[in-house]
């Protein structure tokens, strides 16, 4: 293939990685499945492979209360602050979704959650002040947070706050792409009536899985009608079908919407090892997901791309590899192949009972056999057509 203009740009682009140890303070309790040690594991994996160095790293700022108010209610922020110092009554906590099994109260939760949001705002400013083309903030991507309610491990919704921030300060058209296995409901509802923010979520069907929404026919309301896209995949979907659906939809939606900037939420919980979901993808999708985001950011947005983290509950075998690939694609335009660093494996194998994988790829003999694979693929194709039918009619 001849090296085109966009190919050159894709090789030359600048990337930044948001990190501070303080991001690990977002910790509900030791047994909680949402564990930000994933960010550290990914960072060290990248460092040990010489893919990340000190000059790539940008420290997150803390979101101010006026930042949070771009999306959240004052009353809710006050409740989170009270909870942070143990002063929220049980009655009030229920109203705001705090103190539940999913989002238990922990000391200083307001500060910890504000730092995650601030990291996403730092990522936005870094890109929009022209310091970098792409920024990765793995501590962000908390897409279930509502205006006045914590939900699904999310206290503040950093992506919703940050997209409001982009709209207010830069007035750009934002394409939000959510590849978490759970529907990106909080972000979708935040912009459901806004034609300048297009949301696209691909996830496991909500028939069984939390949060239950994310049907094809959720298309937005009022002026925002036609700017919300959802593809609910059948449980046990594998790589081939996942990628066909993702690539077709993302290409067509980007072409339809012509975004100025792309924000991706890179939850890593669609893998067959993930304990909370029922999709059956392998590492293959985590190589291709960022690759297309990178390409389309250069095609439509002069490279402006912010990638966030999200879910991912096999924190040892899946998330560090998946997230490291996002950075690898940002930085080098290529996913990694071959073996993981021995140094990293040696250090972290001691910390877990599961056997860490030694290569970037999964081996085919590990893949689950899904007898209904053809039915599932056909169902997913139909869902894809249903989701895209209006924009396909236009072109």
């Amino acid at each position: 293939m001849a090296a085109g203009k966009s190919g050159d740009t894709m090789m030359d682009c600048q990337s930044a990685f948001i990190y501070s140890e303080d991001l690990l303070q977002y910790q509900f309790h030791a047994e909680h499945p949402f564990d930000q040690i994933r960010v550290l594991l990914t960072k060290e994996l990248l460092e040990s492979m010489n893919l990340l160095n000190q000059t790539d790293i940008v420290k997150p700022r803390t979101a101010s209360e006026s930042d949070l108010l771009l999306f959240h209610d004052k009353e809710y922020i006050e409740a989170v602050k009270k909870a942070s110092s143990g002063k929220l009554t049980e009655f009030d906590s229920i109203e705001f979704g705090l103190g539940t099994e999913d989002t238990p109260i922990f000391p200083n939760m307001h500060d910890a959650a504000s730092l995650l949001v601030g990291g996403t705002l730092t990522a936005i400013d870094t890109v929009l002040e022209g310091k970098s083309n792409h920024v990765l903030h793995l501590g962000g991507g908390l897409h279930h947070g509502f205006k006045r309610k914590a939900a699904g491990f999310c206290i503040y919704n950093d992506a919703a706050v940050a997209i409001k921030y982009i709209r207010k300060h830069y007035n750009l058209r934002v394409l939000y792409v959510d590849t978490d296995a759970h529907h990106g409901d909080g972000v979708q509802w935040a912009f459901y009536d806004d034609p300048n923010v297009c949301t696209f979520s691909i996830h496991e069907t909500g028939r069984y899985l939390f949060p239950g929404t994310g049907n094809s026919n959720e298309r937005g309301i009022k002026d925002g009608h036609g700017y919300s896209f959802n593809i609910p995949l059948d449980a046990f979907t594998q790589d081939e079908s996942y990628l066909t659906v993702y690539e077709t939809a993302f290409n067509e939606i980007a072409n339809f919407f012509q975004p100025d900037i792309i924000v991706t939420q890179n939850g890593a919980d669609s893998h067959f090892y993930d304990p909370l979901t029922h999709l059956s993808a392998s590492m293959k999708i985590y190589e291709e997901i960022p690759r297309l985001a990178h390409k389309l950011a250069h095609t439509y947005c002069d490279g402006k791309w912010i990638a966030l983290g999200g879910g991912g509950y096999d924190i040892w075998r899946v998330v560090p590899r998946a997230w490291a690939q996002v950075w690898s694609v940002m930085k080098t335009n290529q996913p990694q192949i071959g073996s993981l660093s021995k140094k990293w494996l040696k250090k972290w194998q001691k910390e877990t009972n599961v056997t860490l994988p030694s290569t970037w790829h999964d081996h085919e003999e590990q893949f689950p056999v899904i007898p209904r694979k053809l039915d599932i693929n056909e169902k997913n194709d139909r869902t894809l057509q249903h989701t895209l039918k209006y924009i396909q009619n236009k072109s």
Partner: protein
Amino acid sequence: MIVENMMKTDVITLQPSATIAEALHLLQKHRIRHIPIVDDQGQVVGIVSDRDVRDASPSIFDKDTNQVQLNHKIESIMSHPVITVHPLDFVEEIAKIFYDEAFACVPVVKNNKLVGIITEKDLLYTLIQLTGTHVQSSHIEVKVPDRPGILPEVAAYFGKRKINIVSVLIYPYDDDQHYKTLVFRVQTMNPLPVIADLINAGFELIWPQENQGIL
């Protein structure tokens, strides 16, 4: 759920002496499919559907002729007597009427006066609320022996984990009359601990289940 809580109260109506043309206009303007016909006392004397009106209208191929048909009185084509319901009737009774009679709308009448209307769409909306699929939740299905006390026994495991239950459905397990299926929608993204509790207590889960795809 009772009719009073499901019905629409701003009902579009016509008098028996109104014309078919007026009915056609109202159906199009309000994007509705049924118009109760009421007399001066507010009593329901008939009902017309969009199909009744369309049957009485000229074909789209004869637009310029025969418009005179539209000047007939609505009472000449309305259905009567009308099956009506009371505000205190139950959602399942409405479902049964729609199923048995194969129609999709009933006027709600109290003291012989029209007070509201319920359509198939209102019924489906209510069923969505009852299944809890409109709020953030995960779905868990448990197979249980059909005996008194089993529901609180299972439900207690959610309470212990501080997991709010959005909805509960109970129905027979396949054809086996000794078992029931309990379907819970619960407000948690992480059902794993409560699933472990249920399995440890000896309950059989229908969903989630390992290898569910291998059917």
